[in-house]
């Protein structure tokens, strides 16, 4: 769930605090399974809060992150996305599952019939 929330948050503003206390305020461009991030329009603040840097783009290595602060609205956006995906997934899944079971039943039936006859020959 956490990484999928992050993926859904692409394009929204966020605050990233790093383990060394620096903070980066910017919009999330992309992220990966390691929590590496690329941000755009970034304001980087030093740990003491006295120095500010403006960066057009920044790359953050995931293991350096302490936490991320996201806008509250994101939860609702994610829920809507999940609801849409589940609705599509159920329709496709049910149709595919029925077809799959049909094939398997046919295959097993034929296979067990041959096996039974073969076993009979062996014992006899």
């Amino acid at each position, binding site marked *: *769930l*956490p990484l999928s*929330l992050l993926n859904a948050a692409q394009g929204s503003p966020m605050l990233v605090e790093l383990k060394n206390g620096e903070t980066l305020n910017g919009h999330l461009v992309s992220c990966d399974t390691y*929590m590496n991030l690329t941000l755009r329009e970034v304001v980087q603040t030093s740990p003491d809060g006295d120095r500010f840097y403006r960066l057009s783009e920044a790359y953050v290595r995931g293991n350096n*992150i302490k*936490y991320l*602060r*996201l*806008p509250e609205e994101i*939860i609702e956006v994610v829920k809507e996305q999940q609801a849409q995906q589940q609705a599509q997934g159920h329709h496709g899944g049910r149709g595919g599952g029925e077809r799959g079971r049909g094939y398997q039943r046919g295959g097993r039936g034929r296979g067990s019939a041959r096996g039974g006859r073969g076993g009979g020959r062996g014992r006899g």
Partner: protein
Amino acid sequence: MSSLGPFVGKTVTIITSDGRTLTGQLLGHDQTTNLILSSTIERIFSPPDSDEPSQEVEHGLYLIRGDNVAVCGLVDEDIENGIDWTAVKAYPLGSMKHS
């Protein structure tokens, strides 16, 4: 192996590796203990010898990286609401990492 599954949707208090206390609703977690907390409040306690009341800071939606989570505890809502937190004093916790 125990997991955070039973805690999802409930109010939890997290102690982070730098000694901060965050309370919020646990929305989700994963294998590396990354946590999603909503309506997060950070409580900053004043030391017993100081007269300042303890403070609360609202932080909204938090995604906390698992490396920085020390403790995640389930909160009893009734007991929690019955406490006047501004009157609670405590020494600050140390950080997990020692130089």
